[in-house]
């Protein structure tokens, strides 16, 4: 009976992943996954609920309620933090389970190594995710990479240290746990904010791998299957995000990229514009492409974007959205924020789909994006972003950049797009700038 329930559960998990692949079926995917999870958890009891005491049931109920409460209260702009936090919990749980199994049982050799692996990955995921959440909340600045390099250099001797001790038993377990904890903290602490899409996807993958290894220890096929599915999907997203920056995963994890201005000199002043002029410019356009970036999320400008889109569409102006894969702080971040304000996903375009259209676009509005539209990625071989696929907005007939100042983006380099002859700068906060443009439309 249990076997049949587990079989149904595995199949449901696989179908759920399949359904996640299309916007029209994605909401059913979540239902499938929840059902699969309920069956899998139910089967773990093996119809014997009396083996468990009240502390067990109270923990489940309280933390379940807490999970619902947290998830309902958080705003959409805080979604990356929340996904990171829950992910850390999952990793932490796997790490804790591996620890208990290691200290409680005499495991056979293969299980012993899998358990060590699960503990290390799980604990790393936990501390790494907590640091990622703190960074996303702006509570933690970039840490100097020197500390990380010193730690990495000393890691091999640190790992071998317990071998010198007489007793390879329990004490070295806690020692390894502590090492993994510190490794997670240091590794994520040196990685800058704009690399967070990679970090979040990577940690997500690790939590799946930790769960999968826990499945090996307790001999649960469903745990192995579901963990492997999560691990694989996380790896795909990680690699996609890295490819979108033309960097390797190792390079991202090494940290220290960006965050400081390397070169922010401009050979001439940019042309600045006013909300009124932008409104006039837009009303003569036939096609408009909006390029959102992290600045839109920070300013919470989604609602203003929607309002401007409506205003333009009422004037029969075509509006599209060009979204770079690593825009924002997690994979698909911009798409979620735009969906929140009811912007049709048919109007959201990926880099490959929209790049050929820029040359025939009348006006591009850049909203809080910077490095992902920097033409130096195509031309300057010495630039840190050289080779990164960018949105070719500089090819459009006119470009309006809404930005508070001329400060550089994450890569710390000047963006020649800002001083192009067909670019005008509207110096304002993303939300305020858009609202002023909308107001000006009423006067045009």
């Amino acid at each position, binding site marked *: 009976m249990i076997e049949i329930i587990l079989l149904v559960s595995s199949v449901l998990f*696989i179908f759920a*992943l399949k359904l*996640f*692949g*299309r*916007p029209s079926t*994605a909401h059913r995917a*979540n239902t499938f*996954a929840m059902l699969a*999870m309920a069956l899998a*958890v139910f089967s*773990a*009891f093996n119809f014997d609920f009396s083996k468990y005491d009240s502390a067990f049931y109270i*923990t489940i109920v309280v*933390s379940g309620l*807490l*999970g*619902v409460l947290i*998830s309902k209260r*958080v705003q*959409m702009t805080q979604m990356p933090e929340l*996904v990171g936090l*829950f*992910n850390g919990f*999952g*990793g*932490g*749980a*796997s790490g*804790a*389970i591996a620890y*208990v199994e290691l200290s*409680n049982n005499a495991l*056979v050799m293969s299980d012993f190594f899998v358990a060590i692996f699960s503990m290390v990955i799980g604990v790393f995921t936990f501390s790494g995710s907590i640091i990622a959440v703190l960074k996303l909340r702006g509570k933690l600045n970039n840490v100097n990479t020197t500390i990380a390099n010193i730690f990495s250099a000393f890691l091999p001797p640190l790992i071998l240290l317990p071998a010198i001790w007489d007793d390879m038993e329990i004490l070295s377990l806690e020692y390894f746990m502590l090492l993994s904890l510190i490794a997670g903290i240091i590794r994520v602490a040196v990685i800058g904010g704009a690399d967070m899409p990679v970090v979040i*996807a990577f940690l*997500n993958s690790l939590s799946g791998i*930790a*769960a999968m290894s*826990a499945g090996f*220890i307790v001999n649960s*096929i469903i*745990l192995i*299957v579901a*963990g*492997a*599915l*999560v691990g*694989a*999907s*996380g790896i*795909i*997203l990680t690699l*996609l995000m890295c490819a979108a920056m033309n960097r390797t995963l190792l390079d991202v994890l090494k940290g220290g990229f960006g965050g400081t201005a390397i070169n922010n000199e401009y050979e001439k002043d940019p042309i600045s514009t006013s909300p009124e002029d932008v409104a006039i410019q837009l009303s003569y356009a036939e096609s408009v492409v909006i390029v959102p970036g992290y600045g839109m999320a920070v300013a919470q400008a989604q609602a203003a974007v929607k309002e401007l889109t409506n205003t333009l569409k009422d004037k029969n102006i075509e509006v599209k959205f060009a979204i770079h894969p690593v825009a924002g702080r*997690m994979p*698909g*971040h911009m798409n*979620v924020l735009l*969906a929140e304000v*009811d912007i049709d*996903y048919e109007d959201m375009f990926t880099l490959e789909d929209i790049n050929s259209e820029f040359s025939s676009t009348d006006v591009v509005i850049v909203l809080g994006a910077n490095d992902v539209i920097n033409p130096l990625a195509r031309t300057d071989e010495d630039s840190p972003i050289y080779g990164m696929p960018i949105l070719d907005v500089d090819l459009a007939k006119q470009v309006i950049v809404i930005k508070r100042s001329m400060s550089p983006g994450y890569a710390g380099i000047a963006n020649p797009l800002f001083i192009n002859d067909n670019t005008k700068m509207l110096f304002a906060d993303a939300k305020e700038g858009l609202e002023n443009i909308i107001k000006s439309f009423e006067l045009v």
Partner: protein
Amino acid sequence: MEATFLLTLLITFLASFIGYELISKIPQTLHTPLMSGSNAISGITLIAAILIYPEVGESQLLKIIVLIAIAFATLNIVGGFSVTGRILEMFKKND
């Protein structure tokens, strides 16, 4: 024992392969809900906690650690699915 271990490895490989194949063509629009949903699934490690809880024995410390694991995994599952539901709700109203 060896045969079972190999069989388990085979299942692991197949599941990873299926996961990889299913996800590789997913559109960018759905990256966040996919990640959030698969994140919730990683809380399935709760099963391991449920399986080992009755066998922890006398040690109060280990029992507490398993309870922490249960709390973490439950938070991950329930919170994760709930957030994914919220995100997908926004895509649904577009249809």
